């Protein structure tokens, strides 16, 4: 049983690490500020979420698990709020988002930061 939980928590941790990596790759590949934020949100939802689940499984029914759950709740509430503040600040300071499908004539060049 312990073995099973260890394996399960390892799977969740590896999954979380994978999505953190995907988010980081997206951060590099995306063309402008706003799309980069979209890529980063993969890290903060699936990446952090799976890792927290893995750690909670690892901790078992302890106070540590409760703290981890509180962290998860905090991420659920705080990370969208900060993303929203960041995006709003960027738009208000005049950073135009890149719009339209990639490579098409419709594509609007990104503005200077």
């Amino acid at each position, binding site marked *: 049983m312990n073995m099973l939980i260890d394996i399960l928590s390892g799977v969740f941790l590896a999954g979380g690490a994978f*999505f953190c990596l*995907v*988010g980081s*790759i*997206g951060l590099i*590949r*995306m063309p*402008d500020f*706003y*799309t980069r*934020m*979209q*890529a980063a*949100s*993969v890290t903060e*939802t*699936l990446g952090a979420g799976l890792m927290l689940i893995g750690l909670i499984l690892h901790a078992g029914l302890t*106070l540590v698990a*409760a*703290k981890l759950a*509180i962290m998860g709740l905090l991420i*659920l*509430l705080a*990370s*969208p*709020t900060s*993303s*929203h503040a960041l*995006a*709003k600040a960027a*738009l208000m300071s005049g950073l135009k*988002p*890149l*719009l*339209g*499908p*990639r490579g098409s004539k419709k594509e609007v060049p990104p503005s200077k930061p």
Partner: protein
Amino acid sequence: MIRTLASALALYSIWLLLSGMFVPFLLAAGFCCAIAIKLFSRRLNAIAEETEVLELNWVKLVAYYPWLIKETVLAAWDVSKRILNPRLPISPALVEFAPSQKTDLGLVIHANSITLTPGTISVEVEHGRFLVHALTEEGALSLAGSEMDRRCAELEVV
């Protein structure tokens, strides 16, 4: 008065949960801290006078979170596939639409849920007007009158 005591008690229980050490000194220190924070915040008037009681349909909220997590996972998977696709198939869009929530709390929950879901970020939030940045055009077009909109409106107690 009752509310002051209740929030001091809430602060104290968070202290207990985070400290996890039940020695007399720390128990007493936590209690003093909870009272002090309460007094300071009253003095700073940090907690506004007209603190709203969270009026929500709690039954619907309990059902809402699992649904939101499911949606978030699906959206994150979709965005991950786009990131790893060599052609990077994205078509960013800014879209404006009218959310159907009436209360501030409903609007905040809807906007937060939109931002939490990878692929969409709420940029401007006002009564009757959301400005959302989406990673794909499909994502942008599916926002107005979405299931999320309906579910958030159901959470409200008007």
